[in-house]
């Protein structure tokens, strides 16, 4: 199912994306899928967030996930599902 997300990129990610935010259509099921997809669009994106050895979120990066109508909270598990109309901030 195609989902529309509002992706927001904080300062340090800006040099990679070139935009502060975007509305993005995807079929990604989890955050990990989304990161892989974004890495194809913005080379090096995944490396910022995913630790190559452990596959987990890097300690010096943060993702805030806000489900539809909900307050964004810090992500711990990259395998959490992505919902339609979610707002996701990449730090």
């Amino acid at each position, binding site marked *: 199912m195609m989902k529309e997300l509002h992706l*927001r990129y*904080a*300062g340090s990610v800006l040099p990679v994306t070139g935009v502060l935010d975007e509305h993005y259509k995807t079929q990604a099921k989890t955050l990990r899928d989304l990161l892989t997809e974004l890495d194809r669009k913005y080379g090096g994106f995944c490396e910022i967030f995913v630790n190559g050895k452990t596959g987990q979120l890097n300690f*010096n*990066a943060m993702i805030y996930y806000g489900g539809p109508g909900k*307050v*964004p909270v810090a992500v711990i598990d990259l395998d959490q599902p992505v919902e339609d109309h979610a707002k996701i901030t990449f730090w």
Partner: protein
Amino acid sequence: MAFSVEEAGPNQSPLRWRRFTLKVRENKVQTILRVDLSRRTSSLETLPEAWTRDYIGCRGMNARLLFNEVKAKTDPFGPDNILYLGTGPLDGLPIGMGRMSVACKSPRGTVAEGSFGGFFGPELRRAGIDYLAIQGQADYPVYLYIEDGNIEIRDARHLWGLLTHETDATLHRELKDPDVQLRYIGPAGENLVHASPIFGNLNNCGGRAGCGEVMGSKKLKAIAVRGHQGIRPADYDGFVEAYKVFRKRLDLKTSRDMWTPVWSAYGAPVLVRLFAEMGNLMTRNAREMQWDYEKATAVSGEKFLTHYVTKAKSCWCCPWPACQKLYEIKSGKFQGFKGGNYWAGQPVAFGSLIDNDDLEFILVLSGLCNRYGLDIFHIGYTLSWAMECFENGLLTKEDTDGLELRFGCKDQEGLIELLRKIAMKEGFGQLLALGCTEASKIVGKGSERFCLSVKGLELEGIAQRSMLMVALGIAVSEVGPDHTRWYPPYPCHPNLLSEKELAELGIDLDLKLAFQTRNPKEKGRLLRWFTISRGVVESLPSCVFLIRDTLGLDMRPWWNLFQAATGIDLPYRDFMTAGERLLNLDRAFIVREGFRREDDRPPIRMATEDVPYFGFRKLEPSLFDPMLDEYYEANDWDPETSIPRRKKLEELGLKDVADELASLSLDVG
């Protein structure tokens, strides 16, 4: 060792310097230069070496001096209030330790303490002086000129009334030395405007709890210092090794801290967009916590950096990319306006609080505050209080000198003029110059509900209902709201330190629980730890921005730097106890002035209004009091009164403090 005070007089006659032997300074023993502006005398004393062990320096030493020397019920604006400017044993070593602490009794009775960066602290040490203690009051405006241990009290009548940047330029021109370091006040400090800080290096300021007001009451316009001594660590090789370990934690690639890369490039205003969506932006006087994302983006650090920054600037030898930014507005109606520094506070104080999304106008208001010597939070929160009063009919155009004082800031010229009136205490500005707490007492009619202050001092940029440790930290602080006393609002990632490591460090905290920002549990104990550890860092001194990676919990890198710098062999536990001593001295100071548990409270609005959109609860007693109890219990303070207990004070070697409190009939148990 005493130095005579030579007065140069209004015509600035040439100095008669005595020969001063230049030397390389060490850091074990610290000196204090006492200046009495009433008697026009000065003396240089050496502080006991044991004080470096017990209080380290800077903020810790200032707390000790303040408690000892500024007695209970001293008139804050009288000659007996003492203004301290303190450095520390790491100050001036080329590793980014250029902070200094200013302290005195605040006009509201609390501790007035703040730290700021720049270059003054290292220069003071290079002049052979670690602390300045300024008491008395001059008959007419003066400034101090200190060079390598010599001091003069000079006429400053020609400087009185000048804006801060004018004072800076005039003194540098007169002294013919671009490297002389200055601290000064603006017209706001001269006119005893509420919460005026002390300024330096144009845009740095510290001591927003009223240090500038107290400096103004002494008719002291500025302090100029120049030194030529060297400063070296006692154990050079050990120091280099300790520095390598410390520096690794700040590395942009390897630091295990999400803030490190973001902060390094953009500084604190990069938080604005994130705050907006997390319910952390106090909007329209915190009536709401939801500001449009588009508005937040318009005033964000990213926009500031890409549109206005002309130069990045750092403090003394900072190991991080320069976090201060100079800016210029290059077009539009504010074309040509230049200023410096844009932190997370400005977009709140002059942005969301008053519902202004015009970044250029924020930069103008912020820059003007720096020039007048005003505190941005005093102005931001007092303006938003006045706007809410106006919109509710509690203030009218007759009160505001005809100004339509509404959220959204349509009348920008009117607000710019109002800022001048506040600094000069003219017209409607006289009311706002008192700060929102005192102003609301005069206006009455329920306007106290709109007043966002604690212990008489306006809040800062960080919201409270969304982060419970912040709420507690702001409420209990001995100076009033000051996030730097316990920053950051939650610990590094809980998985970074194992339980074994925590046990080795003597930290008995459940970090996973502490990491949950809206769970009230473990917040009192976490706050205590953060307050103590920040006290240690600010006593060295260093900058809170350098507390990255695990440096906020694992204090051994700081400890190693201290030992190598001073040559003092101090057990780790004793090193950390210095922070606890500092906290207890500050608490003893304010309870001596009459502050109690009931003063450790969030503002009325935060305690009585939920934030439904984000689901944040109001900080009502059922939520707030258990955190407060946990904090008092962790500190071993009386839960009913917040007075430190004798047993705890004696444990910390502060028997004299317990005796002093007991002599004033305070129940220390």
